[in-house]
Protein backbone atom coordinates (compact mmCIF):
# COMPACT_ATOMS: atom_id res chain seq x y z
CA UNK A 1 0.00 0.00 0.00
CA UNK A 2 1.15 3.48 -0.78
CA UNK A 3 2.84 5.20 2.15
CA UNK A 4 0.48 8.18 1.92
CA UNK A 5 -2.61 5.99 2.09
CA UNK A 6 -1.25 4.28 5.19
CA UNK A 7 -0.67 7.67 6.77
CA UNK A 8 -4.22 8.77 5.91
CA UNK A 9 -5.70 5.57 7.38
CA UNK A 10 -3.72 5.98 10.61
CA UNK A 11 -4.74 9.65 10.89
CA UNK A 12 -8.36 8.75 10.15
CA UNK A 13 -8.48 6.17 12.92
CA UNK A 14 -6.64 8.47 15.28
CA UNK A 15 -9.21 11.24 14.68
CA UNK A 16 -12.26 8.96 14.98
CA UNK A 17 -10.90 7.31 18.13
CA UNK A 18 -10.02 10.66 19.68
CA UNK A 19 -13.51 12.03 19.05
CA UNK A 20 -15.17 8.92 20.51
CA UNK A 21 -12.91 9.02 23.57
CA UNK A 22 -13.62 12.73 24.14
CA UNK A 23 -17.38 12.09 23.85
CA UNK A 24 -17.23 9.13 26.24
CA UNK A 25 -15.17 10.96 28.87
CA UNK A 26 -17.30 14.12 28.62
CA UNK A 27 -20.52 12.14 29.14
CA UNK A 28 -18.92 10.29 32.02
CA UNK A 29 -17.76 13.57 33.58
CA UNK A 30 -21.29 14.97 33.35
CA UNK A 31 -22.81 11.80 34.78
CA UNK A 32 -20.40 11.88 37.72
CA UNK A 33 -21.19 15.54 38.37
CA UNK A 34 -24.94 14.89 38.30
CA UNK A 35 -24.55 11.93 40.67
CA UNK A 36 -22.38 14.07 42.92
CA UNK A 37 -25.09 16.69 43.12
CA UNK A 38 -27.90 14.16 43.66
CA UNK A 39 -26.02 12.38 46.45
CA UNK A 40 -25.09 15.56 48.32
CA UNK A 41 -26.66 16.95 51.50
CA UNK A 42 -27.22 20.25 49.71
CA UNK A 43 -29.48 18.52 47.19
CA UNK A 44 -31.52 16.94 50.02
CA UNK A 45 -32.01 20.37 51.56
CA UNK A 46 -32.97 21.77 48.15
CA UNK A 47 -35.59 19.05 47.57
CA UNK A 48 -37.07 19.52 51.07
CA UNK A 49 -37.24 23.29 50.57
CA UNK A 50 -38.98 22.86 47.23
CA UNK A 51 -41.42 20.40 48.80
CA UNK A 52 -42.11 22.82 51.68
CA UNK A 53 -42.64 25.63 49.24
CA UNK A 54 -45.06 23.61 47.13
CA UNK A 55 -47.06 22.47 50.19
CA UNK A 56 -47.15 26.06 51.47
CA UNK A 57 -48.32 27.28 48.08
CA UNK A 58 -50.98 24.61 47.86
CA UNK A 59 -52.22 25.40 51.35
CA UNK A 60 -52.54 29.11 50.68
CA UNK A 61 -54.20 29.08 47.28
CA UNK A 62 -57.77 28.46 46.34
CA UNK A 63 -58.20 24.87 45.21
CA UNK A 64 -60.95 24.36 42.64
CA UNK A 65 -63.52 21.66 43.47
CA UNK A 66 -62.35 19.57 40.57
CA UNK A 67 -58.83 19.55 41.95
CA UNK A 68 -60.04 18.88 45.52
CA UNK A 69 -61.91 15.83 44.29
CA UNK A 70 -58.83 14.65 42.43
CA UNK A 71 -56.57 15.01 45.52
CA UNK A 72 -59.13 13.30 47.78
CA UNK A 73 -59.55 10.36 45.42
CA UNK A 74 -55.84 9.81 45.05
CA UNK A 75 -55.01 10.21 48.76
CA UNK A 76 -57.85 7.86 49.71
CA UNK A 77 -56.55 5.31 47.24
CA UNK A 78 -53.07 5.46 48.79
CA UNK A 79 -54.49 5.23 52.33
CA UNK A 80 -56.52 2.19 51.35
CA UNK A 81 -53.38 0.49 50.09
CA UNK A 82 -51.61 1.25 53.38
CA UNK A 83 -54.58 -0.06 55.37
CA UNK A 84 -54.44 -3.31 53.41
CA UNK A 85 -51.06 -4.00 55.04
CA UNK A 86 -52.55 -3.97 58.53
Amino acid sequence: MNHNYKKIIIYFFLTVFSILIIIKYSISFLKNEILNVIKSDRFDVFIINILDQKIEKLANTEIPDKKKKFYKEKIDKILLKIKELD
Partner: protein
Amino acid sequence: MRNFPYLKKSSLVVFSFAIFSFVGSIYQGSYIYDGFHWGLISSNAQDLLNGKKPYKDFFVHYGFLTVLLQSISLKIYNSVYSILILSSLFYSVSIILLAKLIEKFLSSNYVNLFVFIIIFMQPFIVYPWHTYFIFFTSVFSLSLFLKKNSISLFLFGFFIQLGFLFSESYKIFSIAIILLSIIILFFENQKLKNIIKKIILILLGYLLPLIAFIIYLYLNNLIDYWLLHSNIPNIFVNELNSNIWLLILSFISNYIFESINIFSESYYILGILINLSCIFFLIKTAQEKKINLDLIFISCFSLLLNFMLVFRHESFRFFCGPIIGLVILFYFINNFKDFNKYLSILILLFIAIISNPFEKGNSNRNFTNSNQKILSYNDSSILKFRGMNFTKDTWEHHIKLIEILKKINNKCKSVEFFYNATPDHYYYLIASDYLNSFQKIPGYSETTLKNYYDSMNTYFDSNIKNLMIEKIAKKNIVLMREDYNNSSIAIGKTKINLDNFYFKNLPFSYNNKKKLLYIPDNCTLN
Protein backbone atom coordinates in the same frame (compact mmCIF):
# COMPACT_ATOMS: atom_id res chain seq x y z
CA MET B 1 18.46 4.08 37.46
CA ARG B 2 22.21 4.16 38.06
CA ASN B 3 21.89 2.79 41.57
CA PHE B 4 19.57 0.02 40.42
CA PRO B 5 21.20 -1.41 37.30
CA TYR B 6 19.11 -4.57 37.58
CA LEU B 7 15.84 -2.69 37.61
CA LYS B 8 14.58 -2.20 34.06
CA LYS B 9 12.36 0.71 33.09
CA SER B 10 9.49 -1.66 32.29
CA SER B 11 9.86 -3.35 35.67
CA LEU B 12 9.58 0.02 37.32
CA VAL B 13 6.37 0.68 35.36
CA VAL B 14 4.93 -2.69 36.41
CA PHE B 15 5.91 -2.32 40.07
CA SER B 16 4.58 1.22 40.20
CA PHE B 17 1.28 0.07 38.71
CA ALA B 18 1.10 -2.92 41.07
CA ILE B 19 1.49 -0.59 44.06
CA PHE B 20 -1.06 1.83 42.58
CA SER B 21 -3.51 -1.02 42.03
CA PHE B 22 -2.95 -2.37 45.55
CA VAL B 23 -3.43 0.99 47.27
CA GLY B 24 -6.28 2.02 44.94
CA SER B 25 -8.17 -1.26 45.46
CA ILE B 26 -8.02 -0.89 49.23
CA TYR B 27 -8.90 2.79 49.15
CA GLN B 28 -11.90 2.29 46.85
CA GLY B 29 -13.03 -0.91 48.49
CA SER B 30 -13.15 0.74 51.90
CA TYR B 31 -16.14 2.81 50.71
CA ILE B 32 -18.14 -0.20 49.54
CA TYR B 33 -20.96 -1.67 51.60
CA ASP B 34 -21.78 -5.06 50.10
CA GLY B 35 -23.31 -7.28 52.75
CA PHE B 36 -24.21 -10.02 50.29
CA HIS B 37 -20.78 -10.77 48.74
CA TRP B 38 -18.33 -9.39 51.29
CA GLY B 39 -20.58 -10.46 54.14
CA LEU B 40 -20.69 -14.02 52.83
CA ILE B 41 -16.94 -14.53 52.63
CA SER B 42 -16.22 -12.75 55.91
CA SER B 43 -18.91 -14.82 57.66
CA ASN B 44 -17.31 -18.00 56.30
CA ALA B 45 -13.90 -16.87 57.55
CA GLN B 46 -15.38 -15.99 60.95
CA ASP B 47 -17.11 -19.38 61.19
CA LEU B 48 -13.78 -21.15 60.70
CA LEU B 49 -12.19 -18.94 63.38
CA ASN B 50 -15.07 -19.79 65.71
CA GLY B 51 -14.14 -23.45 65.47
CA LYS B 52 -16.97 -24.49 63.17
CA LYS B 53 -16.25 -27.35 60.78
CA PRO B 54 -16.18 -26.37 57.08
CA TYR B 55 -18.78 -28.05 54.86
CA LYS B 56 -20.50 -29.59 57.91
CA ASP B 57 -21.26 -26.56 60.09
CA PHE B 58 -21.07 -23.87 57.43
CA PHE B 59 -21.43 -23.69 53.69
CA VAL B 60 -18.17 -23.27 51.76
CA HIS B 61 -19.06 -21.42 48.62
CA TYR B 62 -15.93 -21.96 46.55
CA GLY B 63 -12.98 -23.67 48.16
CA PHE B 64 -11.54 -24.51 51.54
CA LEU B 65 -8.23 -22.74 50.93
CA THR B 66 -10.04 -19.47 50.19
CA VAL B 67 -11.82 -19.69 53.55
CA LEU B 68 -8.60 -20.66 55.33
CA LEU B 69 -6.58 -17.78 53.88
CA GLN B 70 -9.34 -15.26 54.53
CA SER B 71 -9.79 -16.48 58.09
CA ILE B 72 -6.05 -16.02 58.70
CA SER B 73 -6.29 -12.42 57.47
CA LEU B 74 -9.42 -11.89 59.59
CA LYS B 75 -7.55 -13.28 62.60
CA ILE B 76 -4.73 -10.76 62.07
CA TYR B 77 -6.85 -7.60 61.80
CA ASN B 78 -10.34 -8.78 62.81
CA SER B 79 -12.00 -6.64 60.13
CA VAL B 80 -13.50 -7.09 56.68
CA TYR B 81 -10.79 -4.64 55.64
CA SER B 82 -8.10 -7.31 56.05
CA ILE B 83 -9.84 -9.56 53.49
CA LEU B 84 -9.90 -6.62 51.10
CA ILE B 85 -6.14 -6.15 51.60
CA LEU B 86 -5.53 -9.85 50.95
CA SER B 87 -7.40 -9.89 47.61
CA SER B 88 -5.75 -6.65 46.51
CA LEU B 89 -2.34 -8.11 47.28
CA PHE B 90 -3.03 -11.23 45.23
CA TYR B 91 -4.24 -9.17 42.27
CA SER B 92 -1.17 -6.93 42.30
CA VAL B 93 1.26 -9.84 42.55
CA SER B 94 -0.56 -11.64 39.71
CA ILE B 95 -0.24 -8.54 37.53
CA ILE B 96 3.53 -8.51 38.13
CA LEU B 97 3.77 -12.22 37.27
CA LEU B 98 1.77 -11.80 34.07
CA ALA B 99 3.98 -8.85 33.07
CA LYS B 100 7.04 -11.06 33.62
CA LEU B 101 5.44 -13.71 31.42
CA ILE B 102 4.90 -11.19 28.63
CA GLU B 103 8.49 -10.01 28.99
CA LYS B 104 9.70 -13.59 28.58
CA PHE B 105 8.37 -13.71 25.01
CA LEU B 106 8.25 -10.09 23.90
CA SER B 107 9.98 -6.75 24.35
CA SER B 108 9.42 -4.46 27.30
CA ASN B 109 7.23 -2.21 25.12
CA TYR B 110 4.54 -4.87 25.28
CA VAL B 111 4.82 -4.95 29.06
CA ASN B 112 4.09 -1.22 29.06
CA LEU B 113 1.18 -1.80 26.68
CA PHE B 114 -0.15 -4.50 29.03
CA VAL B 115 0.05 -2.13 32.00
CA PHE B 116 -1.70 0.54 29.95
CA ILE B 117 -4.55 -1.86 29.12
CA ILE B 118 -4.98 -2.94 32.74
CA ILE B 119 -4.85 0.65 34.06
CA PHE B 120 -7.82 1.54 31.92
CA MET B 121 -9.73 -1.72 31.85
CA GLN B 122 -9.39 -3.32 35.29
CA PRO B 123 -7.12 -1.37 37.62
CA PHE B 124 -8.68 -2.43 40.92
CA ILE B 125 -10.33 -5.42 42.52
CA VAL B 126 -14.13 -5.64 42.56
CA TYR B 127 -14.90 -8.15 45.32
CA PRO B 128 -12.64 -9.85 47.86
CA TRP B 129 -13.32 -12.98 45.81
CA HIS B 130 -11.59 -16.34 45.21
CA THR B 131 -11.16 -15.30 41.56
CA TYR B 132 -8.05 -13.29 42.48
CA PHE B 133 -6.48 -16.33 44.17
CA ILE B 134 -7.18 -18.39 41.04
CA PHE B 135 -5.58 -15.68 38.91
CA PHE B 136 -2.44 -15.94 41.02
CA THR B 137 -2.24 -19.74 40.91
CA SER B 138 -2.91 -19.74 37.14
CA VAL B 139 -0.21 -17.24 36.20
CA PHE B 140 2.30 -18.56 38.72
CA SER B 141 1.84 -22.20 37.73
CA LEU B 142 2.10 -21.25 34.05
CA SER B 143 5.41 -19.48 34.70
CA LEU B 144 6.66 -22.50 36.62
CA PHE B 145 5.74 -24.89 33.81
CA LEU B 146 7.69 -22.83 31.29
CA LYS B 147 10.88 -23.18 33.40
CA LYS B 148 10.64 -26.97 33.06
CA ASN B 149 13.11 -28.01 35.73
CA SER B 150 12.30 -30.68 38.30
CA ILE B 151 11.34 -28.32 41.14
CA SER B 152 9.32 -25.99 38.92
CA LEU B 153 7.33 -28.88 37.41
CA PHE B 154 6.55 -30.21 40.87
CA LEU B 155 5.47 -26.71 41.95
CA PHE B 156 3.45 -26.35 38.73
CA GLY B 157 1.33 -29.34 39.69
CA PHE B 158 1.23 -28.11 43.28
CA PHE B 159 -0.13 -24.66 42.39
CA ILE B 160 -2.64 -26.03 39.90
CA GLN B 161 -3.99 -28.12 42.76
CA LEU B 162 -4.00 -25.08 45.05
CA GLY B 163 -6.17 -23.40 42.40
CA PHE B 164 -8.65 -26.25 42.81
CA LEU B 165 -8.54 -25.92 46.58
CA PHE B 166 -9.13 -22.19 46.27
CA SER B 167 -12.15 -22.80 44.08
CA GLU B 168 -13.72 -26.12 43.26
CA SER B 169 -15.00 -24.64 40.02
CA TYR B 170 -11.36 -25.05 38.91
CA LYS B 171 -11.67 -28.87 39.00
CA ILE B 172 -12.19 -29.72 35.32
CA PHE B 173 -9.78 -26.99 34.24
CA SER B 174 -7.05 -28.30 36.55
CA ILE B 175 -7.40 -31.87 35.24
CA ALA B 176 -7.38 -30.64 31.63
CA ILE B 177 -4.24 -28.57 32.23
CA ILE B 178 -2.38 -31.42 33.90
CA LEU B 179 -3.23 -33.70 30.95
CA LEU B 180 -2.19 -31.01 28.50
CA SER B 181 1.12 -30.47 30.29
CA ILE B 182 1.82 -34.21 30.04
CA ILE B 183 1.02 -34.20 26.30
CA ILE B 184 3.31 -31.17 25.81
CA LEU B 185 6.15 -33.03 27.57
CA PHE B 186 5.80 -35.90 25.09
CA PHE B 187 6.25 -33.49 22.18
CA GLU B 188 9.58 -32.31 23.52
CA ASN B 189 12.57 -34.14 22.15
CA GLN B 190 13.59 -35.83 25.35
CA LYS B 191 14.37 -39.32 26.49
CA LEU B 192 11.36 -41.31 27.67
CA LYS B 193 12.99 -41.76 31.10
CA ASN B 194 13.21 -37.98 31.49
CA ILE B 195 9.62 -37.46 30.39
CA ILE B 196 8.32 -40.06 32.84
CA LYS B 197 10.34 -38.46 35.66
CA LYS B 198 8.79 -35.08 34.84
CA ILE B 199 5.28 -36.51 34.64
CA ILE B 200 5.72 -38.15 38.06
CA LEU B 201 6.87 -34.81 39.50
CA ILE B 202 3.85 -32.97 38.08
CA LEU B 203 1.43 -35.61 39.36
CA LEU B 204 3.16 -35.68 42.74
CA GLY B 205 2.83 -31.90 43.05
CA TYR B 206 -0.77 -32.09 41.91
CA LEU B 207 -1.83 -34.87 44.23
CA LEU B 208 0.05 -33.99 47.43
CA PRO B 209 -2.11 -30.99 48.48
CA LEU B 210 -5.24 -32.90 47.51
CA ILE B 211 -4.19 -35.90 49.63
CA ALA B 212 -3.40 -33.58 52.56
CA PHE B 213 -6.82 -31.97 52.17
CA ILE B 214 -8.60 -35.34 51.98
CA ILE B 215 -6.72 -36.54 55.11
CA TYR B 216 -7.90 -33.39 56.91
CA LEU B 217 -11.48 -34.07 55.78
CA TYR B 218 -11.23 -37.72 56.77
CA LEU B 219 -9.86 -36.97 60.24
CA ASN B 220 -12.73 -34.54 60.83
CA ASN B 221 -15.41 -36.78 59.27
CA LEU B 222 -16.15 -34.20 56.62
CA ILE B 223 -15.78 -36.18 53.40
CA ASP B 224 -19.53 -36.75 52.87
CA TYR B 225 -20.27 -33.08 53.53
CA TRP B 226 -17.54 -32.04 51.10
CA LEU B 227 -18.92 -34.34 48.40
CA LEU B 228 -22.33 -32.76 48.89
CA HIS B 229 -20.82 -29.43 47.82
CA SER B 230 -20.17 -30.83 44.34
CA ASN B 231 -23.88 -30.09 43.72
CA ILE B 232 -23.28 -26.34 43.77
CA PRO B 233 -22.93 -25.94 39.96
CA ASN B 234 -26.21 -27.87 39.44
CA ILE B 235 -28.01 -25.57 41.88
CA PHE B 236 -26.83 -22.47 40.06
CA VAL B 237 -27.68 -23.94 36.67
CA ASN B 238 -31.17 -24.89 37.94
CA GLU B 239 -31.58 -21.40 39.35
CA LEU B 240 -31.11 -20.08 35.83
CA ASN B 241 -33.56 -22.65 34.43
CA SER B 242 -30.85 -23.76 32.07
CA ASN B 243 -28.32 -26.53 31.44
CA ILE B 244 -24.58 -26.47 30.84
CA TRP B 245 -24.90 -26.57 27.02
CA LEU B 246 -27.34 -23.67 26.97
CA LEU B 247 -24.98 -21.74 29.22
CA ILE B 248 -22.07 -22.36 26.84
CA LEU B 249 -24.26 -21.27 23.93
CA SER B 250 -25.30 -18.08 25.70
CA PHE B 251 -21.65 -17.47 26.65
CA ILE B 252 -20.69 -17.54 22.95
CA SER B 253 -23.65 -15.41 21.85
CA ASN B 254 -22.86 -13.00 24.69
CA TYR B 255 -19.36 -12.57 23.33
CA ILE B 256 -20.69 -11.77 19.87
CA PHE B 257 -23.66 -9.53 20.71
CA GLU B 258 -22.37 -7.71 23.78
CA SER B 259 -19.23 -6.62 21.95
CA ILE B 260 -21.46 -4.22 19.99
CA ASN B 261 -21.71 -2.10 23.15
CA ILE B 262 -18.20 -0.82 22.69
CA PHE B 263 -18.80 2.20 24.91
CA SER B 264 -19.70 0.20 28.00
CA GLU B 265 -18.44 -3.32 27.32
CA SER B 266 -15.19 -2.86 25.42
CA TYR B 267 -13.56 -5.75 27.30
CA TYR B 268 -15.72 -8.10 25.19
CA ILE B 269 -13.83 -6.99 22.10
CA LEU B 270 -10.52 -7.55 23.84
CA GLY B 271 -11.82 -11.01 24.81
CA ILE B 272 -12.78 -11.80 21.23
CA LEU B 273 -9.35 -10.66 19.97
CA ILE B 274 -7.52 -12.74 22.60
CA ASN B 275 -9.59 -15.88 22.03
CA LEU B 276 -9.38 -15.60 18.25
CA SER B 277 -5.62 -15.10 18.36
CA CYS B 278 -5.26 -18.19 20.59
CA ILE B 279 -7.45 -20.29 18.28
CA PHE B 280 -5.68 -18.95 15.19
CA PHE B 281 -2.29 -19.65 16.77
CA LEU B 282 -3.25 -23.28 17.40
CA ILE B 283 -4.55 -23.71 13.83
CA LYS B 284 -1.46 -22.07 12.38
CA THR B 285 0.83 -24.22 14.52
CA ALA B 286 -0.88 -27.40 13.33
CA GLN B 287 0.17 -26.51 9.77
CA GLU B 288 3.78 -25.74 10.62
CA LYS B 289 6.77 -28.00 11.16
CA LYS B 290 8.52 -25.86 13.74
CA ILE B 291 6.25 -25.37 16.72
CA ASN B 292 6.53 -23.31 19.87
CA LEU B 293 5.25 -25.59 22.62
CA ASP B 294 5.30 -22.86 25.26
CA LEU B 295 2.98 -20.64 23.27
CA ILE B 296 0.72 -23.59 22.46
CA PHE B 297 0.45 -24.23 26.19
CA ILE B 298 -0.36 -20.57 26.91
CA SER B 299 -3.01 -20.54 24.13
CA CYS B 300 -4.73 -23.63 25.52
CA PHE B 301 -4.39 -22.33 29.08
CA SER B 302 -6.07 -19.05 28.15
CA LEU B 303 -8.83 -20.68 26.10
CA LEU B 304 -9.65 -23.14 28.88
CA LEU B 305 -9.81 -20.33 31.44
CA ASN B 306 -12.91 -19.09 29.63
CA PHE B 307 -14.74 -21.56 31.87
CA MET B 308 -14.74 -18.74 34.45
CA LEU B 309 -17.07 -16.74 32.23
CA VAL B 310 -19.57 -19.43 31.28
CA PHE B 311 -21.73 -19.05 34.35
CA ARG B 312 -21.47 -15.27 34.53
CA HIS B 313 -19.69 -13.05 32.02
CA GLU B 314 -18.17 -10.34 34.18
CA SER B 315 -15.17 -8.18 33.44
CA PHE B 316 -13.27 -9.01 36.63
CA ARG B 317 -13.54 -12.72 35.84
CA PHE B 318 -12.16 -12.08 32.35
CA PHE B 319 -9.23 -10.09 33.75
CA CYS B 320 -8.43 -12.90 36.18
CA GLY B 321 -8.37 -15.65 33.58
CA PRO B 322 -8.48 -15.45 29.78
CA ILE B 323 -6.42 -12.22 29.91
CA ILE B 324 -3.35 -14.52 30.02
CA GLY B 325 -3.90 -14.99 26.28
CA LEU B 326 -2.75 -11.39 25.80
CA VAL B 327 0.71 -12.95 25.37
CA ILE B 328 -0.51 -14.61 22.15
CA LEU B 329 -2.26 -11.47 20.89
CA PHE B 330 0.91 -9.46 21.48
CA TYR B 331 2.95 -12.18 19.79
CA PHE B 332 0.85 -11.78 16.63
CA ILE B 333 1.01 -8.00 16.75
CA ASN B 334 4.77 -8.19 17.15
CA ASN B 335 5.01 -10.30 14.00
CA PHE B 336 3.00 -7.80 11.95
CA LYS B 337 4.77 -5.43 9.58
CA ASP B 338 4.99 -1.75 10.54
CA PHE B 339 1.63 -0.42 9.31
CA ASN B 340 -0.46 -3.35 10.60
CA LYS B 341 1.43 -3.29 13.87
CA TYR B 342 0.77 0.41 14.48
CA LEU B 343 -2.88 0.06 13.50
CA SER B 344 -3.35 -2.94 15.84
CA ILE B 345 -1.71 -1.12 18.73
CA LEU B 346 -3.84 1.94 18.01
CA ILE B 347 -7.01 -0.19 18.15
CA LEU B 348 -5.88 -1.82 21.41
CA LEU B 349 -5.16 1.58 22.94
CA PHE B 350 -8.60 2.76 21.87
CA ILE B 351 -10.33 -0.31 23.35
CA ALA B 352 -8.48 0.31 26.61
CA ILE B 353 -9.11 4.05 26.90
CA ILE B 354 -12.79 3.85 25.92
CA SER B 355 -13.29 1.46 28.85
CA ASN B 356 -12.96 4.46 31.22
CA PRO B 357 -12.24 3.58 34.84
CA PHE B 358 -13.35 7.04 36.01
CA GLU B 359 -17.02 6.07 36.24
CA LYS B 360 -18.99 3.22 37.79
CA GLY B 361 -18.88 0.53 35.14
CA ASN B 362 -17.25 -2.67 34.01
CA SER B 363 -13.71 -1.39 34.35
CA ASN B 364 -14.23 0.04 37.82
CA ARG B 365 -17.29 -1.25 39.58
CA ASN B 366 -16.29 0.15 42.96
CA PHE B 367 -15.99 3.70 41.67
CA THR B 368 -17.41 5.99 44.33
CA ASN B 369 -18.19 9.60 43.56
CA SER B 370 -16.50 12.29 45.58
CA ASN B 371 -19.57 13.40 47.53
CA GLN B 372 -20.19 9.85 48.66
CA LYS B 373 -16.60 9.79 49.93
CA ILE B 374 -17.04 13.10 51.73
CA LEU B 375 -20.17 11.80 53.46
CA SER B 376 -18.48 8.53 54.46
CA TYR B 377 -16.23 8.04 57.46
CA ASN B 378 -14.75 5.35 59.65
CA ASP B 379 -16.32 4.50 62.98
CA SER B 380 -13.94 2.54 65.14
CA SER B 381 -16.71 1.36 67.49
CA ILE B 382 -17.52 -1.59 65.21
CA LEU B 383 -14.38 -3.73 65.11
CA LYS B 384 -15.51 -5.89 62.19
CA PHE B 385 -15.69 -2.75 60.00
CA ARG B 386 -12.41 -1.22 61.16
CA GLY B 387 -10.85 0.65 58.22
CA MET B 388 -14.11 0.76 56.26
CA ASN B 389 -15.85 4.03 55.41
CA PHE B 390 -19.64 4.12 55.43
CA THR B 391 -22.23 6.87 55.59
CA LYS B 392 -23.73 8.01 58.90
CA ASP B 393 -27.04 6.17 58.41
CA THR B 394 -25.24 2.85 57.82
CA TRP B 395 -23.13 3.26 60.97
CA GLU B 396 -26.20 4.22 63.04
CA HIS B 397 -28.04 1.17 61.76
CA HIS B 398 -25.28 -1.21 62.83
CA ILE B 399 -24.48 0.56 66.08
CA LYS B 400 -28.14 0.21 67.06
CA LEU B 401 -28.03 -3.50 66.21
CA ILE B 402 -24.95 -4.01 68.39
CA GLU B 403 -26.55 -2.03 71.19
CA ILE B 404 -29.61 -4.33 71.13
CA LEU B 405 -27.48 -7.48 70.88
CA LYS B 406 -25.42 -6.38 73.90
CA LYS B 407 -28.62 -5.78 75.89
CA ILE B 408 -29.93 -9.22 74.92
CA ASN B 409 -26.63 -10.73 76.02
CA ASN B 410 -26.84 -9.03 79.40
CA LYS B 411 -30.52 -9.24 80.17
CA CYS B 412 -31.78 -12.37 78.45
CA LYS B 413 -29.61 -15.33 79.29
CA SER B 414 -32.15 -17.68 77.74
CA VAL B 415 -31.51 -16.24 74.28
CA GLU B 416 -28.62 -18.15 72.72
CA PHE B 417 -29.11 -17.99 68.98
CA PHE B 418 -29.28 -15.52 66.12
CA TYR B 419 -30.96 -16.16 62.78
CA ASN B 420 -30.34 -13.93 59.79
CA ALA B 421 -33.36 -13.90 57.47
CA THR B 422 -31.84 -11.23 55.21
CA PRO B 423 -29.37 -11.53 52.32
CA ASP B 424 -27.06 -9.06 54.08
CA HIS B 425 -24.58 -11.50 55.58
CA TYR B 426 -22.89 -8.75 57.62
CA TYR B 427 -25.63 -9.20 60.25
CA TYR B 428 -24.53 -12.78 60.72
CA LEU B 429 -20.89 -11.67 60.99
CA ILE B 430 -21.64 -9.01 63.60
CA ALA B 431 -24.05 -11.17 65.60
CA SER B 432 -21.53 -14.04 65.76
CA ASP B 433 -19.62 -11.98 68.37
CA TYR B 434 -22.63 -12.07 70.70
CA LEU B 435 -24.77 -15.10 69.92
CA ASN B 436 -24.47 -18.58 68.42
CA SER B 437 -25.88 -19.56 65.07
CA PHE B 438 -26.93 -22.87 63.57
CA GLN B 439 -27.38 -21.46 60.07
CA LYS B 440 -25.03 -23.11 57.59
CA ILE B 441 -25.68 -20.43 55.00
CA PRO B 442 -25.28 -17.07 56.77
CA GLY B 443 -28.40 -15.47 55.31
CA TYR B 444 -31.88 -16.03 53.96
CA SER B 445 -34.48 -14.02 52.10
CA GLU B 446 -38.22 -14.04 52.51
CA THR B 447 -38.60 -11.87 49.42
CA THR B 448 -36.53 -11.49 46.24
CA LEU B 449 -33.83 -14.14 46.79
CA LYS B 450 -36.10 -16.70 48.47
CA ASN B 451 -35.77 -19.29 45.69
CA TYR B 452 -31.97 -19.07 45.73
CA TYR B 453 -31.71 -19.60 49.50
CA ASP B 454 -34.41 -22.29 49.50
CA SER B 455 -32.58 -24.38 46.91
CA MET B 456 -29.29 -23.94 48.82
CA ASN B 457 -30.97 -24.95 52.09
CA THR B 458 -32.49 -28.04 50.45
CA TYR B 459 -28.98 -29.36 49.74
CA PHE B 460 -26.80 -27.98 52.49
CA ASP B 461 -29.03 -27.14 55.43
CA SER B 462 -32.03 -29.43 55.17
CA ASN B 463 -32.57 -29.48 58.95
CA ILE B 464 -32.86 -25.70 59.28
CA LYS B 465 -36.65 -25.74 59.33
CA ASN B 466 -36.84 -28.20 62.27
CA LEU B 467 -34.19 -26.32 64.19
CA MET B 468 -36.07 -23.06 63.68
CA ILE B 469 -39.36 -24.58 64.88
CA GLU B 470 -37.58 -25.90 67.97
CA LYS B 471 -35.73 -22.64 68.82
CA ILE B 472 -38.76 -20.44 68.18
CA ALA B 473 -40.87 -22.68 70.45
CA LYS B 474 -38.17 -22.48 73.13
CA LYS B 475 -37.94 -18.71 72.60
CA ASN B 476 -34.14 -18.78 72.73
CA ILE B 477 -33.55 -17.08 69.39
CA VAL B 478 -33.58 -13.57 67.88
CA LEU B 479 -34.30 -13.07 64.19
CA MET B 480 -33.17 -10.37 61.82
CA ARG B 481 -35.78 -9.83 59.11
CA GLU B 482 -36.35 -7.66 56.09
CA ASP B 483 -39.24 -5.21 56.25
CA TYR B 484 -41.78 -7.95 55.93
CA ASN B 485 -44.09 -7.22 58.78
CA ASN B 486 -45.77 -10.54 59.20
CA SER B 487 -46.47 -12.56 62.30
CA SER B 488 -44.90 -15.68 60.83
CA ILE B 489 -41.55 -16.40 59.21
CA ALA B 490 -41.42 -18.50 56.06
CA ILE B 491 -38.64 -21.06 55.64
CA GLY B 492 -39.17 -22.81 52.36
CA LYS B 493 -42.89 -23.52 52.25
CA THR B 494 -43.24 -23.75 56.03
CA LYS B 495 -44.53 -20.80 58.00
CA ILE B 496 -43.46 -20.61 61.62
CA ASN B 497 -45.58 -18.51 63.94
CA LEU B 498 -43.92 -15.58 65.67
CA ASP B 499 -46.79 -14.62 67.98
CA ASN B 500 -44.57 -14.86 71.04
CA PHE B 501 -42.10 -12.40 69.58
CA TYR B 502 -42.02 -8.63 69.35
CA PHE B 503 -39.83 -6.62 67.04
CA LYS B 504 -37.53 -3.64 67.25
CA ASN B 505 -36.98 -1.41 64.25
CA LEU B 506 -33.43 -0.65 63.24
CA PRO B 507 -32.84 2.88 61.91
CA PHE B 508 -33.41 3.12 58.16
CA SER B 509 -30.29 3.43 56.04
CA TYR B 510 -29.73 3.72 52.30
CA ASN B 511 -27.61 0.54 52.25
CA ASN B 512 -29.65 -1.53 54.70
CA LYS B 513 -33.16 -0.23 54.14
CA LYS B 514 -35.61 -1.01 56.93
CA LYS B 515 -34.78 -4.04 59.06
CA LEU B 516 -36.57 -5.59 62.03
CA LEU B 517 -35.08 -7.56 64.89
CA TYR B 518 -37.55 -10.08 66.32
CA ILE B 519 -37.04 -10.77 70.02
CA PRO B 520 -38.88 -13.31 72.25
CA ASP B 521 -41.50 -11.67 74.45
CA ASN B 522 -39.87 -13.04 77.61
CA CYS B 523 -36.82 -10.92 76.82
CA THR B 524 -37.62 -7.35 77.83
CA LEU B 525 -34.91 -4.87 77.07
CA ASN B 526 -36.22 -1.62 78.55
